[in-house]
């Protein structure tokens, strides 16, 4: 085999995805400069012109993986994979290739050199050529079934499985479908451009052929930054603001308390990682549409327009859970989503959800749409699990939603240049 690493390092330095176009003289600046002889030379020899313009790069390397506390991008593409190889060495090799490719793609580069052999398929699939990095983040996680499946210690990792990394319990009202549940590995790609996110996942899945296959895949969206320059809290498809209560991602202590796995929590290999819960929640859109505004607001416990807690004026006003109206009834009902989700208010999760739409439910003719609920936390057993137990029992929102998919992954710690994602687990 050719020395891939050497070639890529040269490639990484020299040619960004936009640079490729410029070198070819068909990109914006390159085409203009190309008119003069000197400009043409510059455009060819110095692709770094584009580097200065790229303020939409989220660093891939670091103590923690990106895509967790990163300010949510416009689009999500998340896939769960089933590992098909029996070889731990294959798995390690795959994570090494994934790490290298992810570092390239998140910085706006293609995944391989531009091969000159017309008898080989191109190394990069090409659909992101000319596109900006788009704040792409790629986040990797491992599921419980990577450690033990059907009682089998697949890769000699059984002793490393954290007590927290086990299948989520069955919650009341769960209507999970097998094809939307679980998985050995997870790749979450988020970007401000869906094509960039798709390109990332597609190329990573391609590298996995023969070693892992897709188990489920889901795209998600939010209002784009273009549509909402103020970056207010996004609304879910039921029209309500979603994600008002989240830990402060700029506070190191808040993140240590609620998001990042700390030393002593479990096996050391996961320190700096985080548990990700994914729930595919279908919304009964048509049913919701015919419920009254009062009913809708009572369901969430918030005013629809402002996002303020019922009885308050502004979104971030603190809720008064004791307040009663003139008839003596609670202003924020006992079953309101925000009240039930909050519980005693001691345990928060970092929510990072996206809406989804998958066309039509062919069985009913209804819109198939809802929420790809994603949250990150340090300890599912005291965070998501008790919260969901309360919600499944008491949440008024249950009349309008149904949980169809579910998965838990341990998102691996971050990695420094030269290392690979998963090294603490596999080495």
């Amino acid at each position: 085999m050719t020395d891939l690493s050497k070639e890529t390092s040269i490639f990484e330095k020299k040619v960004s995805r936009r640079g490729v176009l410029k070198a070819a003289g068909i990109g914006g600046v390159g085409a203009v400069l190309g008119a003069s002889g000197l400009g043409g030379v510059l455009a060819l020899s110095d692709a770094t012109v584009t580097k200065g313009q790229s303020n939409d790069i989220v660093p891939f390397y670091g103590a923690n993986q990106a895509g967790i506390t990163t300010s949510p991008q416009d689009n999500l593409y998340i896939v769960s994979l089933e590992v098909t190889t029996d070889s731990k060495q294959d798995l390690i090799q795959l994570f090494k290739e994934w790490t290298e490719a992810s570092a390239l793609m998140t910085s706006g580069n293609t995944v391989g050199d531009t091969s000159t052999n017309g008898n080989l398929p191109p190394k990069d699939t090409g659909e992101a050529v000319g596109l900006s990095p788009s704040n792409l983040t790629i986040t990797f996680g491992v599921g419980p079934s990577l450690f033990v499946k059907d009682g089998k210690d697949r890769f000699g990792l059984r002793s490393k499985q954290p007590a927290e990394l086990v299948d989520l319990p069955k919650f009341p009202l769960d209507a999970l479908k097998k094809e939307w549940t679980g998985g050995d590995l997870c790749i979450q790609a988020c970007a401000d451009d869906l094509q960039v996110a798709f390109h990332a996942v597609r190329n990573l899945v391609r590298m996995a052929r023969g070693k892992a296959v897709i188990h489920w895949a889901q795209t998600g969206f939010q209002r784009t930054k273009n549509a909402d320059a103020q970056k207010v809290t996004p609304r879910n498809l039921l029209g309500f603001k979603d994600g008002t209560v989240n830990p402060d991602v700029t506070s190191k202590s808040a993140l240590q308390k609620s998001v990042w796995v700390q030393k002593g929590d479990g096996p050391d290999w996961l320190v700096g990682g985080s548990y990700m819960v994914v729930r595919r929640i279908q919304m009964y859109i048509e049913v919701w549409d015919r419920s009254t505004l009062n009913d809708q607001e009572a369901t969430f416990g918030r005013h629809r327009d402002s996002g303020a807690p019922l009885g308050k004026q502004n979104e971030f006003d603190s809720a008064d859970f004791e307040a009663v109206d003139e008839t003596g009834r609670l202003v924020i009902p006992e079953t309101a989503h925000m009240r039930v989700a909050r519980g005693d208010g001691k345990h928060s999760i970092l929510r990072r959800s996206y809406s989804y739409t998958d066309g039509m439910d062919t069985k009913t003719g209804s819109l198939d749409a809802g929420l790809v609920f994603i949250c990150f936390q340090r300890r599912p057993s005291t965070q998501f699990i008790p919260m969901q137990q309360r919600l499944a029992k008491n949440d008024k929102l249950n009349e309008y939603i149904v949980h169809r998919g579910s998965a838990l992954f341990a998102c691996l710690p971050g990695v420094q240049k030269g290392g690979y994602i998963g090294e603490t687990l596999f080495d």
Partner: protein
Amino acid sequence: MKKAKTAVAVLLSTSLLFGCSQKNEEATTKKEETKEVAKDALDGVTAEYREYAINEIEEFVIATEEFTNAVIEGDVEKAKELYAPARMHYERAEPIAEVFGDLDPKIDAREGDVPEDEWTGYHRIEYGLWEKNTTKGYEEYAEQLMKDVHLLRAKVETVEVTPDLLVTGAVDLLNEVSTSKVTGEEDRYSHTDLYDFVANVQGAEEIFNLLKDEVKAKDADLAATIEAQFAQVHSLLDQQKEGDGYKLYTDLTEAEVKKFSQAVDALAEPLSQIGIVTEAS
């Protein structure tokens, strides 16, 4: 039938070289200059493949003769029995057989691939046998099919086998599996898709085996990966064996179909790298 032509083969002559001996053809092939750097090493390989493909087409002629005779004689059961095994010869040699854009649809078009009044060949007769349980009214199609297959046999002599044809042909065969056999759309009345599936895989494996030494010399890991993935696909196919043949597509579970599809992807991805044999060492 192939949906879109990727004209990789070169026709040496538009006139048909009836009765022209194989040796003469090889000599002609060798005179042609190609740009591939590794051409010398691959020369023997392309000649060997040519022999393999022509041999399969010859078998195809014989099998088609038996099949069409059964149709003409009105023997529905015998025709049904001969249908799937006969097609396997065609499917093995498809990189060569389907070079002829006019003949391939006549022999192998499925319903809807061509206008209804132009629909002939194997699948037209398949429709009569399984959907109508009859040969009546299909005798003409049988006669036409036989003519077309004879014509194919004559025309294959004119195909020059190039390294490109081998490299793309191997993956193309698996792409055929991915897009029509795995989906059960190839033999939609007889549901004998697995026969075509097996034949396509065998055809691809033949090409790989011919190139194996070259691939190994360039990248031993790649050769080993491809071999392991071929073995995986074979073991899945073996599980569906029934007597001398294979289970019907409709007897496969959804999970089995998915497994097949993913195993073919896992094989075709590394197989798509065999083009390295055309690189200078």
